[in-house]
């Protein structure tokens, strides 16, 4: 498994070469419940870490998904717009939201690794 990092806002980021794939964590999809709508950014858009990257909506609430790292949007998971349930089914895999071309790999160091994130979530309930 490649190196995966998490934010305290429940986004995950996985890096292959200089492309970062971003999604929301399994904990987040669980808390949101059945996702009914996903809004994705335009490809080519440049995001700074902390910028709004996407919007995810469940029956309970609408939430913004923030970019954990900076970069240019090179691909979005358009399948989610037709089948938002994909987020619930496989949040950590096929339910990814966007792919960014990393502009500053050092930003990854500020994020949590899997063990730290698990501990973080355990502390939330």
């Amino acid at each position, binding site marked *: 498994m490649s190196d995966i990092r998490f934010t305290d*806002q*429940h*986004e995950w980021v996985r890096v292959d070469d200089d492309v970062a794939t971003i999604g*929301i964590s399994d904990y*987040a999809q669980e*808390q*949101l*419940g*059945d996702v*009914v*709508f996903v809004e994705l950014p335009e490809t080519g858009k440049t995001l700074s870490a902390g910028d709004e990257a996407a919007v*995810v909506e*469940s*029956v*309970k*609430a*609408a*939430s*913004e*998904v*923030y970019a954990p790292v900076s970069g240019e949007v090179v691909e979005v998971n358009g399948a989610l717009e037709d089948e*938002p*349930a994909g987020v619930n089914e496989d949040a950590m895999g096929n339910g990814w939201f966007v792919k960014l071309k990393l502009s500053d790999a050092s930003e990854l160091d500020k994020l949590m690794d899997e063990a730290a994130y698990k501990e973080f979530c355990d502390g*939330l309930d």
Partner: protein
Amino acid sequence: MSGMNKQGRPTSFAESGGGAERTTFTGNKGLELEEPLIFERDTKGACGVDLDEPEGYQPKIGKFERKNRIGLPGLSEPEVVRHFVRLSSKNYSIDAGLYPLGSCTMKHNPRLNEKMARLPGFGDVHPLQPEQTVQGAMELIDTLAHWLKTLTGLPAVAMSPKAGAHGELCGMMAIRAAIEAKGEGEQRRRVLVPESAHGTNPATAALLGYKVDTIKGDGNGRVDLEALREKLGPDVAAIMLTNPNTCGLFERDIIDIAKAVHEAGAYFYCDGANFNAIVGRVRPGDLGVDAMHINLHKTFSTPHGGGGPGAGPVVFSEALAPFVPLPYVVQKDGVYDLIETEDEAEADGTSPFGRMTAFHGQMGMFVRALAYMMSHGSDGLRQVAEDSVLNANYVLASLKDVMSASYEGPCMHEALFDDRFLKGTGVETLDFAKAMIDEGYHPMTMYFPLVVHGALLIEPTETESKQGIDLFIATLRDLVAATKSNDKERFSGAPHFAPRGRLDETAAARKPILRWQPEMPAQAAD
């Protein structure tokens, strides 16, 4: 991610056990009558009135004459009457029973209000009538304005906003105008909103282009004064605070909050949705409030939502009074005049920020609200506040041994519980609320406020009798006992006795049927 709602509300239809329903041949359940959409009742050629085809009729609009049916259904008069009577019988309203929707103040709408609103001099006037023909109606607006100012201790009021959130927008636009008049428009871009505020507050600030900054609670359901002080600065435009707040608690530090906000050069917007808890007892002007909307459909008993248009007049402090929007009523030598243009306003010494509505506001609601005030008098209004607080505390005290009250001590006009009492039962707040429907009650507000888990917010209002509240309390106690028994079916898939069982909200959002289509019979309504 922002704003992630972790309140535990289940969203999966399948897990809720919903779906299965016992049916009859007609779809009727005893006196509970099934009713399709009016388009499904269509009988081609049927009509309420029989008129002969005119002979030798020549249309005068030539080629513009309509060639196709416009798609109106054909029904006879009794069919139309039955259709709407049957639909109305499916509606749960305050006229049908207790409606404990927290923060909504669903109280009785006195019939005296209705009688007054139907007087021809109020009911049959038109906003474009010459002013000299509607002097009485304008006097009524002015009189109501006077009492709203008196009850809030604030010197100015905008009568035109059409509802609470519209009033918020009006209040914040006046604040923005005042800030811009001081030349600080560029600098003050942040609005502070406590996490216990009404959801419309941050929405209003965002709509006006402000950055919303959340203030943490103190852990006891109130604003943390120190956290607020830290957030204040020269870039803050205003604070938007609800008092009493959505936890049903009075913000005890409100005077210190107002002082700190004013020292920072910002304005204090108070959401007056819960004014019914303090009317006649506390004047917001004395607390340092700069602007506050008053939901006439809450505190002053005019009908809510579908029952009639809302009305959200906004009262203003001295600092904001000059910016009150057009139009407004003035009186000189016993003659009432509507100030409608900027020129007229300039001559009157004000500088309105603009206009919220085409006309002067909801006349029918003004009549009802004034009828309510006049019939209660000052002692009666004081008792409204006292009884609303008493009733809510009676509910709180009668249920806190079996349900989990979120905060220590007494509440104001609404009692807040969370879902700790459901822990381990397999029943969620949502199931509990649905089971209340089977018992004939509109559920309380649930999963709001967000600051507690699985919230149940109950506002009985002052218009319920002790007998009525006792039955409600007994019902909730019985339901709580059932959550701990083997009778889980009472909750899973509930409501069982409503016209429809549990609806699949997720499917409705993912695959909405937005338009009726002829080739999709009956099940379209399901």
